[in-house]
């Protein structure tokens, strides 16, 4: 009886706390606020480039590679107030590749990290869990033309971006989402290698369904076979064993097939392309610096830059034990404080981006840059 009373008090306390939180959260953010933004634009492909026929007040930005970006210019929207955004593109021709973008508060553009794959004629819905919404300034879409045989390139087409649906953050949202996710069948999602140590994927099937099956199975076995507590315990462990056998199959699949493009090939037992590039570059740089010297002098300092964080840190690891450090724009001003004779800047990019040296974010006022090695993916410069 005491236990029942305790559970009742516990549940009542929980309800009270949740109500208090809901009340305070509800006062901060309007729980019912949902914004829907319907915008319409039309694009025309002209000689392999995209051109705007009319823009209906939207901001289009033409990129050097022929792609076209569109941002919803709503400065009155404070994205930090929202938990979820759904965006849909209707009537998109399959020849037009599209990806969803967000622009951070510093004005830098990123591709949304999580979203459904872009296929068919729409992208919907979108729920990027991994985004810090306080960082978001604008949302947008980038289009890249992929001409195919049989498509009339001069034919204009209309394109709608519809349902920029912003749902406000509410205290009960996570609980509601928890319930909907627990009761829904989930695809197995696998995060990038950076996050594998922090998250280990999702259930393939609903955990609630699993637990329910387990309890039902255990009860059935208990009813028929179990005559003692030892047998009950055996039944419970059998349930867990079955669950683990099922999970083990998934785990094996996780390690053997890793679809994420970023730095995940290594998880399948093969050093992936990025790592191979970092390793190859580090060996070439080491050889170059050792050329003419019996060993790399301790006075040599290397600053490594890459727009890809994985590539940069992995390169640094391969370059060890050389005197190597990370270079970024914020710390660039510190470089001129280094009183070393041999200071180099190493720039590494993963794609064939043309002149890699040009992507180095160095203020020329800091000193002279002399190019000493320039290859397809990397460039080594002396800083003086």
């Amino acid at each position, binding site marked *: 009886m005491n236990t029942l009373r305790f559970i009742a008090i516990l549940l009542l306390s929980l309800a009270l706390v949740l109500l208090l939180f809901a009340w305070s959260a509800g006062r901060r953010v309007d729980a019912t606020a949902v914004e829907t933004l319907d915008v319409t634009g039309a694009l025309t492909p002209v000689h392999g480039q995209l051109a705007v026929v009319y823009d209906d007040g939207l901001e289009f930005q033409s990129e050097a590679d022929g792609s076209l970006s569109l941002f919803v210019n709503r400065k009155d929207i404070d994205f930090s107030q929202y938990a979820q955004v759904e965006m849909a593109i209707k009537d998109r021709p399959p020849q037009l590749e599209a990806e969803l973008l967000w622009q951070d508060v510093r004005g830098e553009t990123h591709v949304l990290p999580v979203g459904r794959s872009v296929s068919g004629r729409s992208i919907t819905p979108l729920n990027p869990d991994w985004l810090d919404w306080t960082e978001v300034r604008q949302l947008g879409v980038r289009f890249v033309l992929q001409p195919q045989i049989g498509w009339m390139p001069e034919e204009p087409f209309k394109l709608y971006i519809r349902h920029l649906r912003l749902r406000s*953050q509410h205290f009960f949202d996570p609980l509601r989402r928890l319930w909907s996710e627990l009761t829904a069948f989930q695809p197995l999602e696998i995060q990038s290698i950076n996050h594998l*140590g922090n998250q280990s994927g999702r259930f393939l099937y609903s955990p609630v369904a699993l637990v329910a099956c387990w309890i039902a199975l255990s009860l059935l076995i208990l009813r028929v076979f179990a005559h003692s507590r*030892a047998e009950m315990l055996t039944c419970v462990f059998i349930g867990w064993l079955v669950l*683990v056998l099922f*999970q083990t199959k*998934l785990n094996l699949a996780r390690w053997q097939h890793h679809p994420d493009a970023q730095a995940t090939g290594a*998880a399948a*037992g093969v050093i992936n392309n990025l790592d191979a590039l970092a390793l190859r570059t580090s060996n070439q740089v080491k050889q170059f610096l050792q050329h003419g010297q019996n060993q790399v002098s301790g006075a040599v300092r290397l600053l490594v830059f890459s727009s890809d964080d994985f590539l940069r840190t992995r390169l640094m690891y391969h370059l*060890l034990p050389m005197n190597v450090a990370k270079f970024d724009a914020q710390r660039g001003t510190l470089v001129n*404080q280094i009183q070393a004779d041999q200071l180099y800047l190493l720039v590494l990019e993963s794609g064939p981006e043309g002149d890699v040296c040009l992507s180095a974010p160095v203020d020329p006022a800091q000193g002279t840059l002399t190019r000493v090695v320039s290859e397809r993916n990397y460039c080594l410069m002396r800083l003086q």
Partner: protein
Amino acid sequence: MSVLMAVVYLLSIYGFGAAISRCGLRLSGGSGNPLLLQTLTLNFFLGLVGQMVLLNLIQLTGWPVPVLVIQVVLMLFAAYFLVWLLREWRQRTPAPTQSGGWFWWVLLTAVALQWLLLWVLNAQLPLVAWDAWVGWAAKAKLWYEQGLELATVSFSDWIGLSDARVNQIAHYPDGVSLIYYAFALFAGWNESVLNALWPLLLANFTVYFYHSMRARLHHPLLPMGLCFVLLSIPFLQVHVVMAGYADLWMAMFLFLAIHSLQTFLQHRHWRTFLLALVFICALPMIKLEGWLWLCLLLFAWTLKTINPVNRLFYWACVLFLLGLWLFFGGLEFDTAIGPFILRPDLISIPNVIEFRLYFTNAMDAFANSLWISQNWSLLWYSLLAYVVFNHIHRKYSEAMLYSLFLNWAFVFILILFFLTDAASWAQNYTTLNRFILHIVPVYLFIMAQYLDLQLRLPSPEDGPTKAPLQASTGGDEAAVQVDQPG
């Protein structure tokens, strides 16, 4: 040759531990643990601590100890281990007979297969754990190539120092990196071989965990079943397969520290006190979070020692002090190492933490990490059961230290991830699960004790002849011996 030398190094860990426990027994004048397998695993962890301390001392004092000397010393320990093992093998006590029936063997097979699978997967991977090649292994690689005395510093310090190297976790303790370094002295810089330390760590811990539960629990199936549950947790599996994170070490040493302390409190033997002291001191040598767990452990110990009659007075004092703190706007004073700030809006302890205090709703990340994602299997669905058991068995003295520690750990986690800047670490999924991993063995251990107590409660069918449960009388005499160093 590389693998052979790796084996020599691994034996040296056991040898180091055996030597330490021999010294401990000489000091305290006791006899060893008759269970050879548990002694072995305990020696492994003692050996790790011993090597960390030894190498740390060499670093701190700046003695120019040649690598060859370190290698020879460790090889001597490996040789000592073989001698010790031979002697102990002759004097070994047969393990207690298993009464778990056929299903105990099924579970044992499942545990062995799980471990084997993890080991195979671990061996197939290169060093891919982000923390390893950004921090732990990177430090060790530097020392391996250029000597143990090479300093690792932050970027801002590096600007003014030409003979130091940058490391992103230069401010973190060097424990795991030092073990990497010592291992590499024998095995060479072979990442696949170095990674084998993680499955070995898990194997040793599982054996120790099993014997610890076996000594405390009445039901024979529970210890093996809970070992199986431990090994089947997906997030733990990730940390074994993707070797290089220090969080698994933290979890294991945290359990060892709490368990040794509880054994000491239960039996009051000097040798168990020394053992507890070693493992408690090892916590800050692994990660910065070790300081936090150390403080919480001491806090839980203090709470346990307070007479329950005075506990109400104690809580009144705590609330009174908290009220004063809020009323006067907190504390703030300068120390030799920097400003010490404990204000309601900012907590700053120089060189350790600095957090602004404000509420952030990180519920989404919590729910996702604990119950939706496949991180913990169904482990945290038992949280409600834990709360209920915790209340029912609140007077069970053998579990009190674990429960006090866990309850305060949960409170701390909630404060950290809901009320400080660290909420962003929960929301971007970089820290929350790893932080929770630290307390998982303790949680499983206490749940095992609660389940055991539930199973021992007399049911109505048992009738009045069944012996009543003696919950707080302590374990039997065999349990006294099992938790002691060999």
